[in-house]
Every structure is written in C-alpha cells, then in structure tokens.
C-alpha cells in the first residue's frame, strides 16, 4: 500500500501493567560501573596486586614485549607497565576528580551570582565568560601551568579546574534565572537569607540534577586533558606516573614499533573515559519519550 494512504497517529495501546517488576539491572550501565569499580579498586589497592616497583628502571629489560614476567611488557626506560597502569591510574583519576570538583564549585558560585545579579552585572559576567571560553583551552592551560611552575598533581588539577567551569556556569545561570522569581526564593530573601544560604538550601538542590551530567563529563574531560598535556610534555613530568605521562614515551616507542607502550595505557584511558560517559548518560536520564509522529 502506498505510504500516502497509511494510517497515521496510531498509538500502540499502553502495555498491560504486569505485576512482575522490571529487573533492577535493566537500563543501568552495569558494565561501565563494574569496570570503573575494578579500576578504582585496583588503583586504591595497587600495592597488593602489583609485584614490581613502578618507578624502578630495569635497564636490562627495557622495551620488553608482554610475557609471563612482565604482564604488559616494559617501557623504553625498563619500567613494568602492569604496575605503572595501577599507580598511574591513581594519579589520572585523582586529577580528574579534583579538577571536576573544583570547576563545579567555581561554576556554581559564578553561575548563581550571575543569575541573581542585576542585569548589567549579569551581562558583564557572561561577556567575560565568553571571552574566557574563546581561547582554546589547551593554550590557556599551558599558560596557567607555566605560571605555576613545574606541574604536580595538585597544580595540574588546579589549572584544569580553573579552566573548566565556563560551560557548567552557563547552565547554572540559566537555571537560576528561571528560579529566581519563585516565591520561595523571594521569601528566603525577605527573611534575610544570605547569598550562600539561598544557594545551598534553595537553588543548588534545584539545579543539581541538570548539572550532574556536565560535572561527570568534566571528570572525563579533565582526565583526557591530563593525558593530552602530559603526552605533549607540558603536563605531569615523566617521573610522576600517570596514564598520560606513560604515553609521553610514545615517540620513542613509535620508532621501535613497541606497540604495547602505546596501546595498553591508551586502552585503559579510553575504556575509563567510555565508562564515565556511559554513567554520565545514564545520570542524564532517559526522558520519557513520546511516540514518534512520523
């Protein structure tokens, strides 16, 4: 039958509500959560599962292929990659979490302040935010990091936190703008509630769900940024083991075709980023989708 003469707008009847509950695991990112838990536990308890000192340079065994002794092989400086993965994961995850927490804090304060401020101030703050966002973040991070001196876990997390807030701040501001006229905010203000009181008790619980996804994505972004910077040689130095600094040996690995030095830390990195994304997507929630009209 021609498509022009088909029935449109037919909705399937809602399925009969059955008493058997949906299995609890349905629609949850179990695989991602399990992987993240595994990596986190491995990183937390790395002294228990690693057999070698990750920093020890066994020059006789440099750039060895993965085998029974060196599960993931060794890098060009003779360090055991299996041990480095877990110790390095600590650093990578710590940088990601710290940076995301810091940027979320800054974003909430700036976004709320901008949303509650008089219009001219709001415009000013938003313009400045836009200027801030206009420099490619890589350049900005390199500049700030250079100003802070040699990178450590803390300074790198600080820099990534300081540069990662703008997107979240914009969302917070939009949410606050929508909320600021609500009567309970007005009542709280009239009763003499200060900025931080209103923020914590009335605003934050309301915009928290909508920024949750972005904050999780910031964790992902910070981990990826740490890896990129350390790889380029402007992030963590070689002796601070992280997934990024492990990859900074790639140039020599490429020359000798030592695929494991590039592939193994990278796979851990990508799998972790993927798991975080899956969890972020789940947090964003599946909107109760209407039926397509097409």
């Amino acid at each position: 039958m021609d498509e022009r003469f088909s029935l449109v707008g037919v909705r399937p009847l809602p399925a009969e509500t059955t008493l058997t509950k949906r299995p609890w695991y349905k629609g949850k990112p179990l695989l991602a959560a399990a992987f993240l838990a595994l990596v986190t536990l491995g990183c937390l308890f790395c002294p228990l599962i690693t057999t070698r000192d990750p920093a020890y340079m066994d020059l006789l065994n440099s750039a060895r292929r993965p085998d029974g002794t060196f599960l993931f092989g060794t890098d060009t400086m003779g360090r055991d990659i299996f041990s480095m993965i877990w110790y390095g994961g600590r650093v990578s995850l710590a940088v990601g979490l710290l940076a995301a927490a810091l940027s979320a804090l800054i974003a909430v304060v700036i976004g709320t302040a901008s949303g509650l401020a008089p219009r001219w101030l709001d415009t000013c703050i938003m313009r400045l935010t836009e200027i801030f966002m206009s420099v490619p973040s890589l350049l900005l991070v390199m500049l700030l990091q250079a100003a802070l001196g040699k990178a450590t876990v803390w300074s790198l997390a600080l820099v990534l936190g300081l540069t990662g807030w703008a997107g979240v701040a914009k969302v917070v501001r939009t949410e606050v703008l929508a909320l600021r006229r609500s009567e309970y905010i007005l009542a709280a203000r009239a009763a003499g509630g200060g900025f931080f009181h209103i923020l914590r008790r009335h605003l934050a619980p309301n915009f928290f769900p909508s920024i949750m996804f972005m904050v999780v994505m910031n964790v992902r972004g910070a981990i990826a940024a740490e890896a990129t910077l350390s790889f380029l040689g402007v992030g963590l130095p070689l002796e601070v083991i992280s997934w990024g600094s492990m990859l900074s040996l790639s140039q020599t690995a490429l020359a000798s075709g030592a695929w494991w030095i590039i592939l193994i830390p990278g796979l851990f990195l990508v799998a972790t980023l993927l798991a975080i994304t899956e969890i972020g997507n789940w947090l964003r929630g599946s909107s109760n989708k209407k039926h397509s009209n097409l």
Partner: protein
Amino acid sequence: MKLFKKLLILIVSLLILSLAVFYAARLAPGDPLASWYGERAERLTPEERAQAEVSLGLDQPIHVQYVRWLKNALRGDFGLSFKYKTGVLEVIRGRVGNTLLLGGLGFLLIFSLALGLGLLCAWQEDKPLDKVLCKLGTVTSCIPEFWLSLLLILIFAVYLRVLPSSGAWSVGGGGTADRARHLILPLAVVVTGHLWYYAYMLRNRLLEEVRSDYVLLARSEGLTRRRVMLHHCLRNALPSYLSLMAISVPHIMGGTYIVETVFSYPGIGTLAYESARYQDYDLLMVLCLLSGGVVILSNMLAQAVSERVDPRVRAREAMGGKGADRHG
C-alpha cells in the same frame, strides 16, 4: 548602529583578552631569552643578560610593556618572534594556510558527514542500525585525539608504511598528491574526534522535531515520511545546526591544534604550542588574539544566523526576555 555595537564588543573583548594573556605570559617563570638566544642564553654574563633584557624591553614593569605593545600593535607592528627572529606576522603568514587547509577541510567534512549521519540515525530511530551507530559514536567520542593520532601513525606509518607520519610535505617539497597524502591521517583524526558529537546533536534535535504536532498533520495530509523528514523536520532543525556549526569553531580549532602538534604539521597549532612552551611572548599574543578573535566572531555569527533564520529569537530579545538564550 547594530553593527557598530557588535564591532565595539569585539574590540573590547580582544582588548581584555590581550591584557589577560599578556599578564599570564609575563608571570610565567620561563626564560624568554632562552628562545631568543637558544643554547647561548645560559652562557651569557649577567651584564650581557641585563643588556639583552633592555634591548628586548623586558626590564620594564609589565603594564609599561603592555602599553608599548598595544601602541605598536595599533600601528600594525606586532613585534618579533624571539625564536624565529622575524616579524610575528611573517612567521604566522607562512603557517596559516596549512592550518586553514586542515581545519577548513575538517570542518566541512565533519558537518557534511554529521548531517548525513544524524539524519540516518533519526530516520532509523531505535532500529539496530541507529543503536550500533550510537554505540560506535560514543566510543569514538571518548578517544583522545592525541592517542588516535598515535594509533593511526603506528598502524599506517610504522607497520604498513603506506602514509607519512609527520609534516605537511616530503623533504624537498611535493605536488598536490604529496600534500594530500600528508593530510589523510591528521584529517582523519580531526574528523573522527568531532563527528559524533554533532551527528548526535542533530539526531536528538530531529527526534524532538518528529514528535511535534505538525508532523502528524503533514502525514495525515498524505505527505510521505521522507518528505516530512527532509522538508519539514530537517528544515526546522537546520537553524540550530547552523549555529552549532558556528559555536563549534573553538572546539574544532582546539582539536586541530593538538593534532598538528602530534603530527608536527607546520601550522598555527604547532606554532602556538611552541610559543606557549618556550615563552615566545609576541608570537603567543598574536596567536591567542587570532584564535580568540575567530571564536568571538563565530559566536556572533552564530547569533546572527539564528536570528536571521529563526525570527523568534529576535522577537524574544526585542521583548526584553532574559531567557533569550539559544538552546542548540
């Protein structure tokens, strides 16, 4: 009048940006003399150092240096690159074409492919093809650009030896084919890194669109699904896609910079990386301003586009509604 206002915003933005970058760069503890003199910087006597700092104007307070920089810049003199020992503009002029080629081709490819991919996914909503593409897309969007570059170099340059691993042309220069061969890998990384994000945005926008009432009306009037999708839904989704294209510029540019650095591709990105790393102040300033300017301009363009294509945005602004933000 409106144009004038926009121009004013652009100029003020660039001024603030230049001030911020100037201060940040000067506060960094690196040694700018090292990039001017190279290895010799360490052998300079204290007197020679002092003299060099005076001649390069590095001995004065930062704000004096900034005002002088600004005065010169307004006259079109953006200073010297410490590393290359020639005018900043000349250094950039030699590289900008390469970046435009890589970034521009990447931009075109990303948005034409994303358009097709987004449409395909929306058309096949929740069917196996859509699901597979969504999973695949999520995976590609999680791969950091530098690592994808490494992987491709490892496969195509180290093991298969079919494509060059770095640069923009072979030693001694080459023809168009040679340049194209050097472009394949960097371009592949730029496109893969960004493609899914924009395809997914378009897909979700289209899925919202097909749930609106006008689609039901159009279908009940006997228009085919295909026609409704392409002539009605896509048409309504395009304004936000266009402004998305404009907003995407800083992201794609940032990605291009990283890819250039990994592939040692002689473009603006490699230059920016070098200048930030070795404190090549004047060069860094111009590169930041150039990047920032492009981004600010593209943001303005995004707004102009969505105003022109979707009169509701302008109407909302005219009514003074603060909620006139674009939801792209």
